[in-house]
């Protein structure tokens, strides 16, 4: 069965430091991969997505992610974290209907705290 693993439950970084959030997936075919961010009391906002092509994808708010098929990973990075980045981050893989977003399987999330 398809699955997504986010090994880090909680990460704390200093403002201005770089960030990498880890995501590993289990999926038989070429996956559709996503990173979402959820602020307290909010819904999920898409940061970036990978469907095909260039394995380094750029997203909103200065985030990027790299798809590595050999490692079944899709790690999220940001060179310099801002206090407003404090939130929960979810990695997801799409399965099902035509490879579309019929069914997103989410990881359990990584909570990011930012120290001043």
């Amino acid at each position: 069965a398809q699955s997504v693993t986010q090994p880090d439950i909680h990460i704390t970084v200093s403002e201005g430091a770089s960030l990498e959030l880890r995501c590993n997936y289990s999926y038989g075919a070429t996956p559709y991969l996503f990173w979402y961010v959820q602020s307290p009391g909010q819904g999920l906002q898409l940061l970036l997505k990978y469907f095909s092509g260039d394995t380094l994808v750029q997203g909103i708010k200065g985030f990027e992610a790299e798809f590595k098929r050999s490692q079944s990973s899709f790690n999220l990075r940001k060179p310099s974290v801002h206090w407003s980045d404090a939130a929960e981050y979810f990695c997801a893989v799409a399965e099902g209907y035509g490879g579309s977003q019929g069914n997103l399987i989410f990881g359990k999330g990584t909570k990011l705290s930012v120290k001043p």
Partner: protein
Amino acid sequence: DAGVTQSPTHLIKTRGQQVTLRCSPKSGHDTVSWYQQALGQGPQFIFQYYEEEERQRGNFPDRFSGHQFPNYSSELNVNALLLGDSALYLCASYRDSNTRGTGELFFGEGSRLTVL
């Protein structure tokens, strides 16, 4: 342009009761998915509606049912509520036609259900 709107935002029910949650998709979107997000967990796919029919279903019991109306809005119904149904219920929409399933998925802010 309104995004995905959900109602009610919060509600409290008792065990055994029934609940109906509502979702209006983003303008131009024709596909609606429902997710359950328990505290401290990632969202779990319940089902998806397209063209007023359930197209995909996750691993949820028949107590969970839904409907999509001609204007693409949707309802999620849960019967015989259990304590474990307490969660944030998220609605998400995207435009399936002409995007081959790659249209961006937009989430609402959710309906927080507490079962006592």
